[in-house]
């Protein structure tokens, strides 16, 4: 009997949960109306100019609500709805131009308009589908405990509902229990029809992925070529020269010991240099400290090796995957190399942290600013490399400084290995 009660208890709990969630959906649906009106007004006020300030705010609020709907759909009804938005342009500034860019970014994204349409559609959908489970359960329960069918519906039908009427109202309880989750799911599916990416958006995303992939392939091919070249002209050549010197020394040892000695000394130098070159190369492929200590340690080691003081603010609770660590490490290294080469700064800083699914690195300096990443420059390479992981890089460098290079990579952290 205990088991039976616990099944009953679970059913009751689930039903209650469904009812509450439905009511929340209904409230949100109603709350969407003022938001819709506010958005409409801010869009109309674009003509007056003031909308440039208001529209992004209201539209982003709409996005926030849509994001909530997506999350509920996933958590409550297991309907997963991907976010369809276009990526935020990276070079957003705070001035008027930045605001215009922000407006353009929001207004040209079809997902913005579909979100608004959803607010409209959600008013009937959310209210009806949201309140129906609670209504069914309450009406059924009331009938069960207090002949409430009569009380509840007496106001429009003075005649008592008779036997079949009672059965009808009573049947609402099991109906509510059984159908409640389905009604919520129907609402989630309705949300998916407008809040999920359209086919065109998916196609665009696929195109973007293909492009970033081919860029990543290009970048890695260039990288391999560099490694081959470094080996060919460096360590390999040193080893050949080493062999040549030793062989030559072997030949002249008896007749000309002095020459043999100097050849051997040269060979020793050559072997040392070959090792140095191999080490440098290895560091350029995957720094050993990065493998051993992760991004945190590698950036600290990098900072120590630089000829100017670098302040570090590193807050990472775990380690990202090796390719992500490597990409971000070389991005930071490139940014710091630029600080040394171009900025004229006497101080730099690196901020590295993980925040809501994104690894964010900011490299700043107190130099002269005015940095403009040119085509073919190192930062373009970094951009390509980060793009392979859906990462972005933004450079702000007003004349007079300071220069800030911000890099963001979406990723997951595994627990710190200690």
């Amino acid at each position, binding site marked *: 009997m205990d088991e039976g009660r616990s099944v009953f208890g679970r059913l009751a709990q689930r039903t209650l949960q469904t009812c509450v969630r439905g009511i929340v959906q209904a409230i949100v649906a109603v709350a969407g109306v003022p938001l819709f009106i506010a958005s409409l007004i801010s869009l109309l006020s674009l003509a007056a100019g003031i909308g440039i300030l208001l529209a992004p705010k209201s539209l982003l609020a709409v996005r926030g609500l849509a994001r909530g709907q997506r999350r509920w759909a996933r958590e409550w009804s297991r309907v997963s709805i991907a976010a369809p938005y276009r990526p935020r342009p990276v070079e957003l500034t705070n001035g008027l131009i930045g605001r215009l860019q922000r407006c353009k970014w929001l207004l040209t994204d079809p997902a913005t308009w579909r979100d608004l349409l959803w607010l409209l559609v959600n008013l009937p959908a959310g209210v009806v589908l949201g309140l129906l489970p609670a209504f069914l359960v309450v009406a059924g329960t009331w009938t069960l405990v207090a002949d409430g069918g009569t009380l509840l519906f007496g106001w429009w039908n003075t005649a008592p509902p008779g036997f079949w009427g009672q059965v009808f109202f009573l049947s609402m309880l099991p109906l509510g229990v059984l159908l409640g989750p389905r009604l919520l799911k129907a609402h989630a599916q309705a949300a998916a029809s407008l809040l999920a990416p359209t086919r065109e958006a998916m196609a665009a995303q696929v195109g973007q992925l293909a492009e970033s992939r081919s860029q990543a392939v290009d970048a890695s091919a260039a990288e391999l070529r560099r490694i081959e070249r470094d080996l060919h002209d460096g360590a390999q*050549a040193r080893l050949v020269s080493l062999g*040549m010197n*030793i062989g030559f020394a072997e030949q002249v040892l008896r007749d000309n010991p002095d020459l043999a000695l100097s050849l051997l000394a040269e060979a020793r130098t050559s072997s040392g240099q070959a090792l140095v070159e191999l080490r440098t190369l290895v560091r350029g492929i995957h720094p050993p400290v990065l493998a051993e200590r992760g991004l945190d340690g590698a950036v600290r080691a990098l900072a120590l090796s630089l000829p100017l003081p670098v302040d570090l603010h590193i807050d990472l609770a775990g380690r990202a995957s090796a390719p992500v660590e490597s990409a971000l490490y070389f991005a930071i290294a490139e940014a710091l190399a630029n600080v040394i080469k171009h900025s004229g700064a006497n101080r730099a800083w690196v901020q590295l942290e993980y925040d809501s699914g994104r690894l964010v690195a900011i490299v700043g300096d107190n130099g002269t600013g005015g940095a403009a990443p040119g085509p073919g420059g190192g930062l373009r390479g970094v951009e390509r490399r980060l793009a392979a992981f859906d990462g972005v890089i933004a450079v702000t460098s007003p004349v007079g400084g300071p220069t800030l290079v911000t890099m963001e990579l979406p990723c997951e952290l595994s627990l710190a290995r200690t």
Partner: protein
Amino acid sequence: MRVVLGEDLTLLRDGLIRLLTAYDMDVVAAVDNGPGLLRALVTHRPDVAVVDVRLPPSFTDEGLKAAIEARAQVPGLPVLVLSQHVEPLYARELLSSGRGGLGYLLKDRVSDVRRFIEAVRTVAGGGTAMDPDVISQLLARHARDEVLGRLTPREREVLALMAEGCTNAGIATRLVVTEKAVNKHISNIFTKLGLYPADDGNRRVLAVLTYLNA
């Protein structure tokens, strides 16, 4: 003996100059790029050229191209090509002129100074000096070849050493057999490959290699 050297890495260029000079060779020109090498080869017409495959400006097979072009302009110009890695494909391109005076060695071979100098002299004398790596790759590829399949394993060993540039006496020493036995193997090889024996050993090697590359 007058030598033109084509090598872009200073370290190796200087080392080679010192080595060749110590063995009484006269390095008349040492250049570090493809176009310069071609000019030097055509103007100096050296007794032998020692050439790195990869040269500036393109850092591709510029040295090889210059050598092939120079041999087209000066037929039979002896060229010893050095490289960090050997490709049968490049060997075939070098051999396609059908003339002797060709060598293609890994740079590693320089450390065996005596044999390296020997190879330079063999090439200068119109012979061939193919790297054992090239030979083994070529032989492996042709192992299932119908005609080569008729050779005994021993005959194939002899063929490989011939291609490396060994004299009959050298082959005898390497295989620890009498020179007479080597001569017999060689004549068998030629019979089986349908080649007429000639007096010049290096020509025969070249003929064999040309056959291998056909």
